[in-house]
């Protein structure tokens, strides 16, 4: 019996909700119980965006993640705000292009990926989120690869099917990145 609670956080427009949706869809494809809950606010772009995602073998209770197993921080305010909330033994994935400081916690694992820079270097400026997702897929063993394409197919609407390829490539870049 396992439950993984994710918290994704960053600026609006960084694809925070999308990244969370991908993880939720992947859970669905993998036959897990899932929930996805966005923060919602009056600002549509540029404000802080976060979302809670739970992937579990058992029915999900509260969909609100206040102590994440996995924190995905895509900007400094997100790390500042949520670092202390991560469960001991948990994992922090962060975009080190936008977060210059180190993580203070010593009881968590940290993966710093310069996702925004990698995205820009590889001519996919909007896909820093999926580069981080690639890293998550590599680090979380039980999160397997098999269903990635299927999940991506569900989260990307048919209208944007031409985006599938580049999303997969972004995840590959994240997966291959080593500190």
């Amino acid at each position, binding site marked *: 019996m396992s439950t993984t609670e994710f918290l994704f956080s960053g600026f609006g427009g960084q694809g925070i909700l999308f990244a969370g*949706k991908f993880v939720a869809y992947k859970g*669905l494809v993998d036959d897990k119980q*899932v929930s*996805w*809950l966005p923060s919602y*606010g009056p600002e549509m772009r540029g404000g802080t965006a976060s979302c809670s995602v739970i992937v579990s073998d058992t029915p999900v*209770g*509260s969909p*609100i993640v206040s102590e994440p197993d996995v924190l995905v921080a895509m900007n400094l305010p997100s790390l500042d705000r949520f670092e202390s909330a991560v469960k001991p033994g948990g994992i922090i994935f962060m975009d080190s292009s936008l977060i210059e400081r180190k993580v203070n916690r010593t009881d968590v694992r940290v993966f710093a990926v310069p996702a925004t820079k990698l995205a820009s270097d590889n001519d996919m400026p909007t896909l820093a989120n999926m580069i981080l997702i690639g890293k998550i897929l590599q680090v979380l063993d039980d999160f397997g690869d098999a269903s990635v394409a299927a999940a991506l197919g569900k989260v990307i609407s048919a209208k944007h099917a031409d985006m599938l390829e580049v999303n997969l490539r972004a995840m590959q870049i994240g997966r291959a990145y080593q500190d």
Partner: protein
Amino acid sequence: MDKVLMKGNEAIAEAAIIAGCRHYFGYPITPQTEIAAYMAKRMPKIGGTFLQAESEIAAINMVYGVASAGLRVMTSSSSPGISLKGEGLSYLAGADLPSFVVNVQRGGPGLGGIQPSQSDYFQSTRGGGHGDYHMIVLAPYSVQEMAELTVKGFELADKYRMTAMILADGTMGQMMEPVSLDLQVAEPPQKPWATTGTNLSRKHNIINSLSLVPEELEKLNVARYERYKIIERDEVRYEEYRMEDADVAIAAFGIAARVSKNAVDEARKMGIKVGLIRPITLWPFPKAPFAKAAEHVKQFISVELSMGQMIEDVKLASECKVPVTLCNRVGGMIPTPKQVLEAIVAADKGGKL
């Protein structure tokens, strides 16, 4: 049918369409706009009507018009908008019209905030507008229930010729969960009372809430409450979770029940015998499980996103045989499982937080 990931708001909209609703009227307000957006996309493709009304007041009166014509119809809003619809809700009750209304609650009073709340409990379970009347109030706690109770709501509204309301909150509306839309829908009943034109073949039908003769108005009110008694007998819904041997019972609905389930499981791991009674119909309120529990628990804890509204019904249903305490957050805040757990531990020790 495969499960799909949907937001609670979208699940309500799709379920309404499945239930045969082809007319939606609404006015934009956070956090329920996904319902209108979904309807705006879907209705034109299935020969239905989506209309953004000039106000919530107009929207509920358009609902009144379609309901008078005998068709399934809905509107949705959030707390401040529901207050505006209060007039229409009262008229719908007075004219005995079936309608389906969704309230995805946000914090109040006034303009309040846009984060989740359950502080419209009194407003909805006590009718919402002027006069003696009730609405059937359904409180889903998952996206699947958002869909299922929507279908149920349309059916109950038709069956009893009254308004059925989904009382959800911002979390329920905004969250995505897997949902199966393989929903069974009963055939709507005949509506010989509807104003669809006499075709010169019958006496004219009148949809009306005016009755100037007190004796007659009294009769109408009494008859309506006779109908309510049947609903209280036949339509009560609730879930009991780990209540069999409980020493402490939590009362919670919607998102508060989700949070509470986590706390119940944690407390059980600590050896505390605690259970949860989750009302699914807020009106009619499930009195029986509370009366039964009052015989063996030492305390009820009402977990709410309000300053304590359902707690009054818990006290009434349990006839105050044991203490009822409140564990709450308001203004858009949500109690954490930890907060509920602390309340459980305190209750188990017999103390009060």
